[in-house]
């Protein structure tokens, strides 16, 4: 019996080694924790052809929406950890959701492999708005506290966080009106139901001339929105947005994680891919698996601080 089990072990090791060496050798299942048509879907669709280009394999995009992404994230660790099931993850969602309630996963249980882009926060107003600049808007909000209204996508979303942080930075009080998703928030914005919108660079690009972008939460201006100044230029330390990355089941071997991270990194350097992403208003970042620990620690600290200030932390510390 003993020699046989040894043989089996050796064979398994060889098989595993071969699997790792050839990864990926079949179609990768790419789960999106939201419905089709959103930004998580669009960025995954843009990556799709480059999996073929750099790895010679296709990806199959699958939607598992529900509870703001929590349904899919709470189930990912029960999938096989062979590198053929990957899932899109989003910040601040995966930090905020477990802080608010028991959603079936904890932030640290998600094995993030790469953060590949973010949609920077942006303040936009309708094109005909009397607020020509961020200065106008802040002045108006100071004059009548609470009377300035902003639409945004959802309660406790990246938009909501940005609004809260900016109110603090600028010493103003504004009213945040949550809507279901970016589409509904944009409808209220274009219909002038609200003074403006806490939104993303992607929305500013998509809505084009119908809106005026007053500020973006980036280090430098976005290449597609050269006329929209950063918050930093205007004296506010605000660089933030919704980050998107990829995670695998926890059981995935480190070697496979590394290979996947390298692959996403390669795609992220493709000039054609970068152009397609930036044309739509996305901003590229690179947080590969090697730097994951530090990146996540920094984000967690940042979000937890604001979440406590906003009083949305419901679970025990």
């Amino acid at each position, binding site marked *: 019996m003993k020699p046989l089990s040894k043989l089996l072990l050796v064979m398994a090791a060889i098989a595993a080694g071969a699997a790792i060496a050839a990864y990926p050798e079949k179609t990768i299942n790419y789960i999106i924790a939201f419905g089709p*048509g*959103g930004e998580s879907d*669009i960025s995954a669709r843009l990556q799709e052809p480059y999996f073929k280009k750099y790895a010679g394999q296709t990806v199959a995009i699958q*939607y*598992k929406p*529900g509870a703001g992404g929590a349904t899919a994230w709470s189930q990912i660790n029960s999938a096989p950890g062979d590198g053929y099931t990957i899932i899109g993850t989003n910040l601040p969602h995966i930090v905020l959701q477990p802080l608010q309630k028991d959603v079936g996963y904890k932030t640290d249980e998600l094995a993030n492999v790469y953060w590949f882009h973010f949609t920077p926060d942006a303040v936009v107003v309708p094109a005909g708005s009397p607020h020509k600049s961020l200065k106008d808007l802040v002045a108006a909000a100071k004059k009548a506290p609470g*009377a300035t209204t902003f639409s945004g996508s959802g309660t406790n979303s990246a938009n909501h966080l940005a609004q809260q942080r900016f109110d603090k930075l600028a010493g103003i009080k504004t009213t945040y009106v949550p809507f279901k998703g970016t589409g509904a928030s944009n*409808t209220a914005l274009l*219909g002038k139901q609200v003074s403006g919108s806490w939104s993303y660079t992607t929305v500013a690009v998509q809505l084009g001339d119908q809106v005026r972008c007053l500020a973006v939460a980036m280090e430098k201006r976005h290449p597609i929105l050269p006329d929209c100044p950063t918050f930093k230029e205007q004296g506010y330390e605000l660089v933030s947005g919704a980050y998107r990355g990829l995670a695998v089941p926890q059981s995935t071997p480190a070697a496979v994680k590394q290979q996947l991270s390298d692959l996403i990194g390669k795609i992220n350097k493709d000039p054609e891919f970068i152009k397609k992403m930036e044309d739509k208003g996305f901003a590229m970042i690179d947080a590969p698996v090697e730097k994951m620990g530090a990146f996540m620690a920094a984000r967690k600290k940042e979000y937890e601080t604001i979440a406590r200030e906003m009083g949305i932390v419901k679970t025990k510390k």
Partner: protein
Amino acid sequence: MASRDPSTWGNGHVPGIEFLIKALTPLNILLAVGGVIAGTVIGALPGLTATMAVAVLVPLTFGMEPASALIALGAIYTGAIYGGAYSAVLLNTPGTPSAIATTFDGYPMARRGDGDLAITLACLASVTGGLVGAAFLLLLAPPLAKFALQFGPVEYFWLAVFGLTLIAALSEGSVLRGLIGGCIGLLLSAIGTAEVGGDIRYTGELKSLLGGIDVVSALIGLYCVPVLMDLVATPDPHLKLTHEVAGFRFREALRIAWRSKSNLARSSVIGTLVGILPGAGGSIASLVAYAEARRVSKNPSSFGKGEPNGILATESSNNATVGGGFIPTLVLGIPGTPPDAVILGALLVQGIRTGPSLFSEQSQIVYTFIYGLFLATILMLPIGLVIGRYAFKSIVSIPKAALVPSVAFLTILGSYAVHNNAHETQQMVVLGLIAWVLGRFGFTASPIVLGLILGTIAESGFVQGYLIGNAKGSALMEFLTRPLSAGIIAFILLTLLYPLVKGRIGAPKLPSNE
């Protein structure tokens, strides 16, 4: 490349007519035919919605020219909305949420042996509605998009309240049971994470309820499961065949449709207008059209018992939402209906930027697409008739021992496909059992589903309107004094008081059963 000279369109004659030729390439015609067939079949299966049909087939369009991709997606979408009528008529289960109201008269018609006539009527109505919606898209898109933007949270709140008043009008037999059903639906809509505010309600620590009750799984459970259980419990065949299935009963259907041309026109316009409003959609459009058809009818008591006008109203209005929904999608970059959101994503991946400039800068793509939508809608007539007849024949001729398991299988498949998750299947089964029990006591599924759909819209509209109103100074003024709100409130009062007023002046000839 077509000329971008603005003088060739927009001055008197039909805009972009030269692109009609472009739309008629053999490849595009083939895509339209394939799209309509695929859409009709997917839409006909309970639980597989138009949104899913479009989402599943989106990846196939990435390799195509933008205009061809759009034609294929538009054809799938319009086909799926029509296909939803089949299971509504033959199984009393709306194939898509848009077909809820089609069950009201479609299934009674099928029960008395007129299922084939009902399906042919649905086909004629869908084509008419689709063409009207597409015509509005072609001719009046920019001004209508502006109109849609006038609807703020407050208007959506009142619109949802208006929808809830229809429960009283639509409940057969007992208004009280209808109202109780509506309340059950409203309570169900409160389950899960609140859309605005993020509070968690009534989940009973069950993670499967965090996302709330899904409308599609509720549709399958509430409508289809009781039908299946009754099929098993009774020895009668599912649908009686009273005559030889020979033709399409096309002439007969055409005669009925012609007699009801004002109903068709009114319902198509209602469908287009509701379709333009992001956040409303085909289910609300068809309910409003149905209630209006019934209100103006000389014979309102025949509605709900197999009245052809009921099918004409719902099926023309829900297909008109296709063209209507594309108006905000293309003009503003805001999806008008859930399938439009998927199509908008596909457009972005294709590198097309929607918005007001789309009609001037990329007019070639837009007009080729609009004519493609006309093409797909017209093709739906022959394709729909043929598939419809086949569907009818197979449902009536399949023995019950085979029909029940296959439909039961589809309910599992469809509810799982909602989110690729077993949570929705569990919800479907539980709701199905509840519906069967409630059915014993004379409750019907429709008020419950209406409460579920409208509850969410009313709640977010109310909270958002309240926040905005308070910021402006007075929430009460915000709700009551906006001109559009006042208009909708007037409509609500009209619907509620109309039966009373009608009773006072000019006594009705026919005794009402309510």
